[in-house]
């Protein structure tokens, strides 16, 4: 039971980072990222491949974060020069193409077999209690990311992001370089998703392309919308509630007969989609509303 709880909480932590990253992009700035999973994958694979190749984790981890942020910046530059609608499509397409790349370019990514034997940091020091150590490591990362993003949100930079979200013409008239702010916000969000990928890869010690399916991006969206977008506390709460939803619905198969295998998975996905759309219609502010008054 302790082992199960430790594992679940570690995954909640990883998901919380993804949600915090999306919150910078969508919650604060109003930028659509439908390929959250791609930046997650860039972080995971970059760090995993470097580490397996013998590079120190002290270099591999920052490299994973940096490459994810750079990929985010590059996509944002291409898509945002025009209309923001295109960002949705470009990020969605990027996630799909990246997955194909991971599957097919076995010379670099080891293809469908995935990357095995990813080193776990300080493994020799914490034998027996390693999972607990890693949970604390992940929670510390979440705490740091939360504190840093709260600072960002309250800073003048964060206020500009929210101004852009509300009305970018007004922000531009006020002399703010809207395009640059948007690209920066998008890169920060992608970098945080990359950090989630790094922690994920070195936790499982194994990554493969099918861990990065398109629905993962939708899960992050649901967590953010559930918790309340624009709001870092909401992002944390949403990740926790989402995992409860997913884990809870797993027990449905014990209650409802005929609900096995493909059907159970499909029912779970239907639930995710319905809750997402219902929340967006009925309670777009989420469980914890943004409340811009509390500066």
């Amino acid at each position, binding site marked *: 039971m302790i082992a199960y709880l430790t594992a679940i909480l570690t995954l909640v932590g990883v998901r919380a980072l993804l949600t915090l990253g999306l919150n910078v992009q969508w919650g604060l700035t*109003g930028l659509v990222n439908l390929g959250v999973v791609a930046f997650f994958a860039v972080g995971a694979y970059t760090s995993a491949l470097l580490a397996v190749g013998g590079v120190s984790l002290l270099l591999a981890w920052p490299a994973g974060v940096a490459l994810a942020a750079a990929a985010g910046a590059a996509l944002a530059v*291409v898509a945002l020069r025009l209309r923001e*609608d*295109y960002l949705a499509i*470009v990020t969605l397409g990027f996630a799909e*193409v990246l997955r194909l790349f991971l599957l097919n370019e076995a010379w670099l990514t080891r293809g469908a077999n995935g990357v095995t034997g990813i080193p776990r940091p300080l493994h020799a020091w914490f034998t027996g209690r390693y999972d607990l150590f890693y949970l604390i490591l992940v929670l510390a990362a979440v705490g740091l990311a939360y504190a840093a993003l709260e600072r960002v949100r309250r800073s003048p930079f964060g206020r500009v992001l929210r101004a852009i979200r509300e009305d970018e013409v007004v922000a531009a008239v006020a002399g703010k370089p809207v395009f640059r702010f948007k690209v920066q916000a998008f890169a920060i969000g992608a970098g945080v998703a990359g950090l989630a990928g790094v922690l994920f890869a070195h936790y499982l010690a194994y990554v493969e392309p099918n861990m990065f399916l398109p629905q993962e991006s939708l899960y992050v*969206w649901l967590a953010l919308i559930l918790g309340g977008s624009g709001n870092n506390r909401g992002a944390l709460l949403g990740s926790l509630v989402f995992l409860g939803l997913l884990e809870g619905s797993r027990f449905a198969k014990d209650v409802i007969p005929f609900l096995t295998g493909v059907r159970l998975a499909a*029912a779970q996905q*239907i639930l995710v989609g319905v809750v997402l*759309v219902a929340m967006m219609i009925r309670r777009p502010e989420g469980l914890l509303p943004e409340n811009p008054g509390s500066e």
Partner: protein
Amino acid sequence: MPPLAQYVFNGIVTGGILALPAVAFSLLWRLLRFPNFAVSTYLTVGAYAALVLNASAHAPLELAWLGALAATGAVALAVDRIAFRPMRDRRPFSLAIASIGVAFVLENIVRFAWGNDFRAYDVPVTRAASVAGLRIGRDQLLILGAAVVLMVLAQAFLLRTRLGIAMRATADNPLLAAVKGVPTDRVIAVATFGGGALAGGAGVFLGLDASIDPLMGGGLIISVFAAAILGGIGSAPGALAGAMIVGVVEEAGTLLVPPTYKSAIGFVIILAVLLVRPSGLAGSRS
């Protein structure tokens, strides 16, 4: 190895199929001002609606096709009423995200009901004719012919009928159109039903040309967008031309890159259009 011309021909047939959802997607985007990601999943809905009529109720495929048009149009209309209409006044990107959620729900309802197996229509197997070294299937010609006829009808509707003109007016300037007495809700309902029907019909073609499975429509999402963006958002003839080009480039591209990268080709087309000619082939304004 078949000649290049074979790839081009296959690509034109694929393009004909892609053209229908691309037009629907493009016009709905222009009219409702958000990219509706559920449009490509309407292909799946149409394909399975026809499968029920054809394989389970033993209707001939022509009749099943008409049934699929009506069923998918109705589904699109229901989706609009339930999910999109309550959110009309929100930021357009909220609607785009809701549409991803809708696509996800529809795809998984299909998966829940029919599983992940590949299926096929109950139609007599015909032998492909050989014309000048090309293998040309009867079904392929039928699909291409029907797709072109549908496109011509859609264009005629937009240009010649009162409702079509009202639709274009609303797409250009919704406020002005409403002031001038255009019934906005009716225009949106007709466009939604029509767009859904076009995509659903294309789904039956796709099921006939390839196979039927829950991912068939959603898997085309990038190609459909590539076609619509290449054609210029809001332009029906543009979307047709864009779809033909995307279809041919995707098929012929498999000579250069592994077929597994087919949807990557669509993505490269999207990036190229955004970088080189953002307004698309037909568009000038944005």
